[in-house]
């Protein structure tokens, strides 16, 4: 049976067609992938299915009955549940309180929390979600928060579950757990639509895959009959090379020296504990590690956003320890922050205002008092073109861009200043293969013009592919170095878990 059938869906935003005559057929009990680049129209299509948008044209059939989904409440009634990428949870509430929120089953005006807790526990056990109904959401990890989101949909009786890029926020282990959960859900008779742009996950979890490119439906393929390369080229519309065209590194004099650095995190717990690191011009050093081992604090300390407790940071032979972010930036630092919405962009500023975020006070943009917005506009247009930032125009708010294009704007801003050290923190998180390829090439290009690059990423594959040398960080120290050309994932995994194995090459 086709549980979901969308026929000829067309949705426009102004003059922009986000969905152009899209057909989607999802069969009962399958995991159906919806694959597409950032901004291809996957989320729009799913928001239509969830009733958040109304399409201009097209028909929707749920369980072979034609419906007009006017809002999320109606979607719920039809058994459609959505697990959002950005969790919609009330942090100080308990798991149970979050799950019943909006669906409080009260008798005579009182909520029976005990009963609700039992129901949540029962659902959690049935699908193996291992969620504690009494835990406070603020205290639980990202993986469990996501399972709370899943429980929310199940509690409302959903049997068609939409997962919106669920793995973007998860660690590799958590991804494995999620895969298990999805299989279990399907076995219990649920149907899953899985929005993603990660090809590996599609190959390992899904039954069929519908590819969308620039608002149009390209094809629906059976996973057993396809491979990663075919999916990638369907998605991007051209051949994608998974191998980087990369010459061997040609390291020169040191650009960055970090010496016995100690940094506390925001709660004053030690995060970086006596770390040493050296990066030379003309090389990319990758830092691998499990999230929360001091990566963020290391970067923020180098950039001047956190004050180190002790130790030294030397950039371009200048001691920059504890200087202000601007002084350090001017010494030759570029920084692609790990959280582009928090640090990287002022989302309500236009693209062009964001492009001058690091240089607005300098000539030719400012004479010290005013800002020459004409010069800013010309510069922004130049970078938008050069870095292929897809935006309606330079005056569009950054908020309106897709994640990949937001990231390209940041990279344009940071790389074009030609810093001698470029720190790239999670530069491709949540991006599609096309954008990832672009960003990796830009990092290598930056290296090849004689600069140093520090790449910090949770994606092992990325670290191994892009870096010339790889350091593994564990509990705020460099646990060991490996040669990315020869290192195995096992070797890295052991180091990441704190084992003292001798790595490949030494520093």
């Amino acid at each position: 049976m086709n549980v979901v059938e969308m026929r000829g869906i067309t949705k426009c935003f102004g003059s922009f067609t986000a969905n152009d005559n899209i057909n989607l057929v999802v069969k009962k009990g399958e995991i159906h992938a919806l694959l597409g680049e950032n901004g291809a129209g996957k989320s729009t299509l799913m928001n239509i299915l969830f009733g958040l948008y109304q399409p201009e044209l097209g028909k929707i059939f749920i369980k072979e009955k034609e419906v007009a989904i006017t809002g999320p409440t109606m979607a719920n009634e039809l058994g459609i549940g959505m697990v959002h990428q950005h969790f919609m949870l009330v942090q100080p509430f308990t798991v149970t309180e979050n799950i019943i929120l909006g669906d409080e089953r009260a008798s005579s005006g009182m909520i029976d929390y005990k009963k609700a807790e039992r129901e949540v526990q029962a659902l959690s056990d049935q699908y193996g979600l291992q969620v504690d109904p009494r835990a406070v959401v603020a205290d639980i990890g990202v993986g469990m928060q996501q399972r709370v989101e899943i429980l929310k949909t199940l509690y409302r009786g959903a049997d068609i579950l939409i997962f919106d890029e669920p793995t973007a926020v998860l660690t590799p282990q958590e991804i494995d757990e999620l895969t298990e959960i999805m299989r279990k859900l399907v076995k219990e008779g649920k149907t899953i639509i899985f929005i993603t742009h990660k090809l590996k996950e599609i190959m390992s979890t899904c039954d069929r895959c519908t590819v969308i490119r620039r608002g149009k439906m390209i094809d629906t393929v059976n996973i057993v009959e396809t491979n990663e390369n075919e999916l990638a080229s369907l998605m991007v519309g051209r051949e994608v090379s998974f191998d980087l065209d990369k010459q061997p590194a040609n390291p020169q004099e040191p650009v960055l020296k970090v010496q016995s650095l100690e940094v506390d995190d925001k709660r004053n717990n030690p995060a970086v504990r006596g770390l040493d690191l050296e990066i030379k011009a003309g090389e990319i050093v990758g830092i691998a590690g499990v999230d929360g081992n001091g990566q963020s604090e290391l970067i923020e300390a180098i950039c001047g956003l956190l004050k180190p407790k002790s130790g030294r940071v030397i950039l371009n032979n200048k001691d920059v320890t504890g200087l202000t972010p601007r002084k350090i930036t001017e010494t030759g630092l570029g920084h692609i922050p790990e959280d582009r919405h928090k640090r990287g962009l002022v989302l309500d500023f236009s693209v062009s205002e964001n492009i001058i975020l690091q240089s607005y006070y300098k000539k030719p943009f400012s004479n010290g008092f005013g800002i020459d917005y004409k010069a800013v506009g010309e510069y922004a247009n130049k970078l938008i073109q050069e870095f292929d930032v897809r935006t309606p125009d330079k005056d569009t708010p950054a908020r309106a861009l897709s994640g990949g294009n937001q990231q390209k704007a940041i990279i344009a801003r940071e790389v074009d200043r030609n810093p001698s050290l470029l720190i790239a923190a999670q530069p491709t998180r949540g991006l599609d293969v096309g954008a990832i390829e672009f960003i990796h090439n830009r990092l290598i290009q930056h290296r090849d013009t004689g600069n140093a690059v520090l790449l910090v990423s949770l994606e092992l594959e990325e670290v191994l592919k892009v870096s010339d040398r790889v350091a593994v960080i564990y509990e705020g120290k460099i646990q060991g170095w490996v040669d990315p050309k020869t290192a195995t994932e096992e070797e890295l995994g052991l180091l990441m878990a704190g084992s003292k194995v001798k790595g490949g090459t030494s520093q």
Partner: protein
Amino acid sequence: MIGKLNRNSTLISSLISIVLGMLVGAIAMLLSGYDPIAAYGALFGSIFGSASDMGETLRTITPLIFAGLSVALAFRTGLFNIGVEGQLVIGGLAAAFVGLKLDLPPVLHAIVALVVGTLAGAIWALIPGLLKAIRGVHEVIVCIMMNWIALFLSNYMVGKVLSNNSDSTEKIHPSASIRVDFLTDLFDGARVHLGLILAILAAIFVYVLLFKTKLGYELRAVGLNPSASEYAGMSVKRNIIISMMISGGIAGLAGAVELLGTNEYLSINASLPGTGFDGIAVALLGANTPMGVVLSSMLFGGLFNGGNNMQYVAGVPFEVIRIVFATIILFVAANIVKQVGNRKSRKKKGENAGA
């Protein structure tokens, strides 16, 4: 181009909202047994009627523009300056001081009084700004306290320093006044004064500051995203302090203008003037843009001034007038017309999808 169209349609929908609000207000008046036609006649008569009426309306609008700009500028930097009241009182007090105690030639006297009033407001706002930046104390609580300090400081000064135990001061020296004959003549004796021109200049100043200068870029960036501003090397603390000082300076100027132009003397007051609180509504209704502040000040000012006339001419009690005004402002603030328009087009699309 599209932006321009949208802005125009906002203006039109605001005007329609005003009309709808007036209709609901008319129903309210009918229900309570008053004649809405006579009442609205009196309202418009007092806004547009004679030159003198128009002059008084403009005078009412003037402090609202200042107060609205002051609040809007702080909002842009992510600060809620609820202390405009106090800064305004202090600005008035400082201007009164200069106007009464100094002997200076005309023009210069007025200029000195205005500048001192502005500085006094800026310094009054510096205190919450500093406490916010350095100690992280929320500006709202400090501002509210500072409002009361300002009121009672002013009352004390009026009684003990600026007069001899009287409840109001003498008139300021004519050399410090910013009433000018040509405006008074033009508006047939109304108390309209140069403050109106200063208010328009202040609106232009705020526009240029926010959207043309380096400082304005920083203020807006800090207001929208302090983390990204810090990352870009801006000092969030410095910008908070500067924003509060400019905001307070505009409020202080408002106080000085009111004193030197409208009242020309200072008296002991039982309560805060309320202009600063009106400024919050003006700023929000004007979407924190200088042009929006000027337009919403015109709405508020027109209603405030016309309200008196409704009372005298049509005999509508003040309570009912407040209900009518609240209805109009509510309609404009909620932008009912646009809301209904959006829903209609959404519904239409929904029907298409279902068909």
